[in-house]
């Protein structure tokens, strides 16, 4: 059996004296789809941010995508995972293509991946559109194109279904299934449980910065 892509033991994250995560134990196998659910402030985004190297571990231990938290550089972790926040996340004055070229060059990814990524997310016709002119749903698709160019082993998606219409939700379901089939793992947050007919995710429920289910 392959190594889990995420392994956390009693992970605690405290920021400005406020505990965001208070003792999280979590193991996520590779090539899996995990959905983090819970009320506002339950710790879903904080857990994703910890896995993405955007928050530091205060205590406990963990490994994410082969990087040991707390001892190895968070920069190394950030380069190993793909993050899509629930906000725009791009330079509004750059075009769709320019944003993708910037990300690809930053990560030493070949630019030949761009046309396929744009085609896959349905933004080929918008490649030269300035990003601030895109709708919220199109910006989300751009974020997914960014991840397709990055091809990370672990996809971290914060509320990815937000701003997507029905066709967008179906598209995302198909994309996530393909990502999983290609060997990557996906961890995402959602307010409610996934309303997908095709995906079979593991549901992890959080409350008060802890995992309450499965306990």
């Amino acid at each position, binding site marked *: 059996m392959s190594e889990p892509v995420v392994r956390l033991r009693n992970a605690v994250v405290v920021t400005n004296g406020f505990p965001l995560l208070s003792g999280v134990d979590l193991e996520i196998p590779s090539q899996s789809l995990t959905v983090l659910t819970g009320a506002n402030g339950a710790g879903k985004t904080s857990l994703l941010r910890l896995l993405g190297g955007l928050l530091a571990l205060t205590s406990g231990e963990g490994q994410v995508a082969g990087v040991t938290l707390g001892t190895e550089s968070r920069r190394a972790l950030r380069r190993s995972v793909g993050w899509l926040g629930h906000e725009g*996340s*791009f330079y509004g004055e*750059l075009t769709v293509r320019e944003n993708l070229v910037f990300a690809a060059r930053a990560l030493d990814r070949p630019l030949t991946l761009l046309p396929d990524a744009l085609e896959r997310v349905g933004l080929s016709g918008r490649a030269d559109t300035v990003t601030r002119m895109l709708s919220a749903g199109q910006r989300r698709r751009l974020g997914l194109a960014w991840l397709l160019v990055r091809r990370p082993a672990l996809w971290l998606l914060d509320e990815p279904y937000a701003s997507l219409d029905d066709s967008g939700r179906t598209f995302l379901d198909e994309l996530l299934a393909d990502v999983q089939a290609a060997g990557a793992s996906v961890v995402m947050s959602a307010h409610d449980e996934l309303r997908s007919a095709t995906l079979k995710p593991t549901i992890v429920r959080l409350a008060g910065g802890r995992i309450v289910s499965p306990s």
Partner: protein
Amino acid sequence: MIRVAWLVAKKDLRIELRSRILLWQVLPFGVLALVLAGLALGPVQAGHSSAAPGLFYLVTLFVTLLVIARSQAVEETPGTRESIATLGLDPAGVFLGKALALMVELWVVGLVLLSGAVLLLHTALAGTVSALPSVLVTLGAMAAAGTLYGALTAGLDGPATLLPVLALPAFAPLLVAGERSFSAALHGGALWEWWVIVVVALVSYLAVGVLLYGVLEEA
């Protein structure tokens, strides 16, 4: 590091070219401020006044603060800073890139304001041209320091008001040295000691930025 610096600088300059905020907002503000300075001195006296280099640098300071704030603002679209953080870019390269872009923008501002100084403050053309190298190096040092202080204030409450308070002490020796070397170019006098101050400041701020920018960004 150099590759990342080049990537970031190109990105920042492209954003600035497309938004045209430097062209339509920042530069007109600088020119207007220079016009007011010229009016305050009076048309005949201005060119002969030792105040002209000081007024030039005072206006340049105001404009520099605007350009620094603008340089940080492009990263402040919700979610952008953390998305870019997940690219895992070398912070030293990011600092150098942002400083380089800011430097180019300040050089454009400096050239326009120097032309304005000749037209509005009636500084001697030959003296102004000979002051150009020292102005460019001074603005380069201000760009390096400004990139550091911009990162320091980004994400804090009230960055627009905090930036001048924190950056002015760092800019003060640069402004004094820049003003003295501009005066020396216009009215004669020793130049080299002011050059030394500006060049040492430029190298120091670049070194500090390369070493500390990552820490500031994480903070």
